[in-house]
């Protein structure tokens, strides 16, 4: 991502936040979107897309796949808006949908999952951390993790979900989530030691 695009995105975000405040906030936007107001839904998209995309990118380790998953997540959200009761924040609800979009995409077929893994291994990932060399190393090391370990590490270590919550999101047992976390930490430790990760 270039500095220019970052500036544009920040400007756009600021504009949209202002627009959201003017039209009455997230709850109002959700109500309007439930009534099939696509303009209101676009504002919700602008508010949440960066977080949804980040999650998709960290889970897929591939820009193109992350873009597709992000779009799929918002399309699913539009189609399921009537199920959103407001028990959690809209962003939390979107996270769940995004995880399902990523997993659904990977579960479509074993071939697809295999392809995603191959792409992840062969693609030079987008540098996610601009300023800190160590964080960039960590981010790139996460990208190289096997799929199962990567998903758990992203949800548990990066996003702070408990193993129970991560297990629910991923459709696995909490114990499995813990095991995958342990595996992820071991693999990361090995990779980062080779990269001179500081103690």
């Amino acid at each position, binding site marked *: 991502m270039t500095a220019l695009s970052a500036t544009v995105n920040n400007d756009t975000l600021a504009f949209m936040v202002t627009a959201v405040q003017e039209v009455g906030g997230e709850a109002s936007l959700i109500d309007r979107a439930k009534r099939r107001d696509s303009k209101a839904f676009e504002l919700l998209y602008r508010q949440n897309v*960066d977080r949804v*995309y980040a999650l998709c990118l960290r889970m897929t380790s591939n820009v193109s796949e992350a*873009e597709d998953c*992000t779009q799929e997540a918002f399309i699913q959200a539009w189609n399921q808006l009537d199920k959103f009761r407001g028990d959690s924040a809209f962003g939390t609800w979107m996270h769940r949908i995004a995880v399902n979009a990523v997993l659904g995409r990977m579960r479509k077929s074993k071939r697809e999952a295999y392809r995603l893994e191959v792409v992840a291994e062969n693609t030079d990932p987008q540098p996610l*951390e601009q300023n800190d060399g160590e964080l960039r190393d960590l981010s790139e090391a996460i990208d190289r993790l096997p799929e199962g370990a990567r998903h758990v590490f992203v949800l548990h270590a990066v*996003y702070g979900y408990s193993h129970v919550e991560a297990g629910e999101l991923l459709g696995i047992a909490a114990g499995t989530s813990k095991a995958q976390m342990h595996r992820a930490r071991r693999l990361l430790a090995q990779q980062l030691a080779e990269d001179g990760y500081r103690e």
Partner: protein
Amino acid sequence: MTDTNDDKLLRDAANLSRSIPPERDLWPGIEAAIEQPKRGGDSPSWLYQAAAVVLLVVGSSGVTYITLKSEEPTSVVAPEDLFYERAAFGSSYSLGPGFTDARGGLAAKLEAQLDRLPPEDRAEIEQNLRLIRDAIDEINAELAKDPGNAQLQALLLKTYREELTLMRRIGDLTQSVISRNDI
């Protein structure tokens, strides 16, 4: 890796960006998808086809209704291509000599063609022609009583046209007769 380093790993992981803007605007693709009308399960294709048929029937019925309604005396507006034909009628209606000749010629050719047709086809055609000609006679009789009746004039022209159309179809006659403006 030591425990300390392991803790550092988790701390750093928690500090990774959770918000990353996509490199391109993804909204247009989403917008295109959500604004697309639903297809498939909700509305089977036969339903669309049935709706199209109903629309067609209603539409054509509407046109027929409007056409018939426009033939009422108070709202008759003859199309431009009928002006010349109408001029042949009016208060002292009569068929032009050109039309009478053309009609007579067509009828003669039709008689020749009819002889070549199978008996069943010939009987059906003769019956149709008889119905049309009976209608022409009746309309003419009414026009004799009310020469200025625009509705009857229009109806007479329409019936003559139907007769000509039928004769043309049977005899495979050329359009030169129809294109004549001496009706």
